[in-house]
C-alpha cells in the first residue's frame, strides 16, 4: 500500500474514533441533562402518564401475545427435553425460572426497543425535523424537560410492568400446553413452580434486569431522537440505531447482570 493510502486509512480510523468518543461524551452529558430536567416529569405527572400510555399500554398487545406464544413453545420444548430424563414433572419450575430470570426481561426488552423505543425516537426526531423543538425553545420552554424527560421516565416505568406481564402470559401459555394439552399434573406444575422459584433472588433479579433494560432502551431512544439529523433519512437512521443499539445493549447488559446476580447459585 502506498504511503498516502496508509495515511488515508489512518486518518479515517482516527476520524471514526474521535467521532465515536465525541458522541459518547455527548451522550453522557445528555444523560446528566435528562436527569437534571427530570423533576418536570414528576411534578407534572400527567406528562409522564401520557408517555406510559404510549410506551406501555400501546405495547401490551405485542408483549402479551409474544409472551403467550413463547410460553407455549417453552412448554412443548421443555417437556420434551425434561421427559427424556424422566423429569417431565419439573416443567413448571423450568418454565417459571426461564421466564422470570431471563426470557421475561430480555424478550420483553427487545420487543420494547422495537415497538416503543423506535416510536419515541421517530417522534422526537420528527419534532426536531419539523422545528417543533426549536419552536418550543423559542417559547421559553425547555424540550428536555417538556418532551425528553417524560418520555424517558415513561419508558423506565413501563418496562418492568411489560416484562412482568410477558412472564405471566408465558407461564399461562406453558400451563395451557403442559397441563391442558400434554397432561402434566396441575398440582405438580404449580407446586414445583412455587417451590423452585424464590422471590429473592429470582423474581427480584428479574425485576432489576427489566428496570436496567428500561433505562438503557429509553435513554437510547430519546438520545437518538434528539440527536437525529433533521431529515427524513436522518430520522430513519436514528430509528434503526435505536432498535439495533437498544437490542445489543439489552443482550450485553443481560450477560453482565447475570454474571453478578447468579454467580453464587451456578
Amino acid at each position, binding site marked *: 500500500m502506498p504511503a498516502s493510502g496508509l495515511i488515508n486509512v489512518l486518518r479515517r480510523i482516527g476520524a471514526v474514533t474521535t467521532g465515536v468518543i465525541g458522541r459518547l461524551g455527548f451522550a453522557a452529558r445528555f444523560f446528566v441533562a435528562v436527569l437534571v430536567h427530570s423533576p418536570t416529569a414528576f411534578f407534572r405527572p400527567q406528562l409522564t402518564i401520557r408517555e406510559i400510555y404510549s410506551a406501555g399500554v400501546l405495547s401490551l398487545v405485542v408483549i402479551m401475545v409474544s409472551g403467550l406464544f413463547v410460553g407455549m413453545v417453552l412448554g412443548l420444548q421443555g417437556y420434551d427435553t425434561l421427559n427424556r430424563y424422566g423429569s417431565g414433572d419439573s416443567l413448571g419450575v423450568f418454565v417459571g425460572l426461564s421466564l422470570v430470570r431471563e426470557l421475561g426481561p430480555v424478550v420483553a426488552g427487545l420487543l420494547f426497543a422495537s415497538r416503543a423505543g423506535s416510536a419515541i425516537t421517530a417522534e422526537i426526531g*420528527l*419534532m426536531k425535523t*419539523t*422545528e*417543533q423543538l*426549536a*419552536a*418550543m*425553545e*423559542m*417559547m*421559553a*420552554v*425547555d424540550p428536555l424537560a*417538556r418532551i425528553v424527560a417524560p418520555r424517558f421516565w415513561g419508558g423506565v416505568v413501563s418496562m418492568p410492568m411489560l416484562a412482568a406481564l410477558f412472564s405471566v402470559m408465558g407461564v399461562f401459555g406453558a400451563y395451557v400446553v403442559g397441563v391442558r394439552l400434554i397432561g402434566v399434573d396441575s398440582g405438580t406444575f404449580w407446586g414445583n413452580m412455587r417451590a423452585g422459584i424464590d422471590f429473592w433472588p429470582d423474581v427480584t433479579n428479574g425485576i432489576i434486569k427489566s428496570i436496567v433494560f428500561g433505562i438503557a432502551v429509553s435513554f437510547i431512544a430519546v438520545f437518538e431522537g434528539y440527536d437525529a439529523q433533521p431529515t427524513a433519512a436522518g430520522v430513519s437512521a436514528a430509528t434503526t440505531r435505536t432498535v439495533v443499539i437498544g437490542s445489543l445493549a439489552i443482550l450485553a447488559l443481560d450477560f453482565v447482570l447475570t454474571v453478578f446476580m447468579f454467580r453464587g447459585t451456578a
Partner: protein
Amino acid sequence: MTIVANQSDALPTAAVPNAVELAGVTFGYDRGRPVLKGIDLEIPRGKVVAIMGGSGCGKTTILRLIGAQLRQQAGSVLVDGQSVGDLDRAGLFALRRRIGMLFQFGALFTDMSVFENVAFQMREHTDLDDEMIRDLVLLKLHAVGLRGTSALMPAELSGGMARRVALARAIALDPMLILYDEPFAGLDPISLGIVGQLIRKLNDALGITSVVVTHDVYESLKIVDYMYFVSEGQIIARGTPDEVRDSDDPFVRQFVDGAPDGPVPFHYPAPAYADELSLHAR
C-alpha cells in the same frame, strides 16, 4: 439614487429606540467559512422590517442570532437593549417570553389541537384558569380568522391555515417582537395576501415590532416599513419600499425584477466549460 448601501444612518426612524440592533456581527457554522461578515442593522420599535436575499445568503441565520438560537462569533446582538449573547439560560428564556416566532412551516405541535397549540404558552408560563385561557385562545384565533378551527388537529389544516394558527400562537403572550421566518413560502396567492395583511395589521394593532425574513419581494413591498438586502453574508442595500422600487442598484434591480442573471450569477462558480469538455486542441 435613494438606496443607501452599507451605511447605518439611513433608517427613517433613527430617533426611535431600536427593538433590535446588530453591530459588526460575524458568524459561521464552520469557522473557516463565515456566513455573516460584519452585519450592521437596526430594527426600530413598532416597525415591520424585512430582511431579504436569495436562498443561502444568511438571512435566516440573522433571525436565529436575534432569537439566540445561535451565538455570534464577533460583534453584538441587542434585543430590547439586552445583549442576547451574554444572557444565561434563565435570562434568555425571560427574554424569549417577550418574543414570538413564526417558523417557516408553522412548527405546530402535531400531537396537540389548534386550541392547545395556541394555549401552550399560556399553560406553561401563566397561572390563568381554564376559562380565561379559553377566552384568550379564541380571541387570538379570531384575530387570524380561524376561531372555527380550534378543535381541529394541525394535520387537518392547509398550509396557509397552519401558518395563521402559528401566528395566533406567536402572539399568545402579547410579545414585543415577532420574528417571521419565510412567512410566505409555499402559500397560494390568497393565503399569501392574508398572511401579509395579518403581519401588518397585528403589528400596528398590538404595537409590536416585526422582523420578516423572506425572499418574496412583491408581498414585502406592500407591507413593510423598511428593507435590508443581504448577499453573501453582508448587507448590500437598504431602504424604504419606495426607495427600493425606484432603486437602480444592480442587485436590488435583479431581485425586484426577478432577473435570472446579474450580480447574483446564474452559474455556480466552475472551471471554464470548454476546459471541462476538453474542447481545446491538444
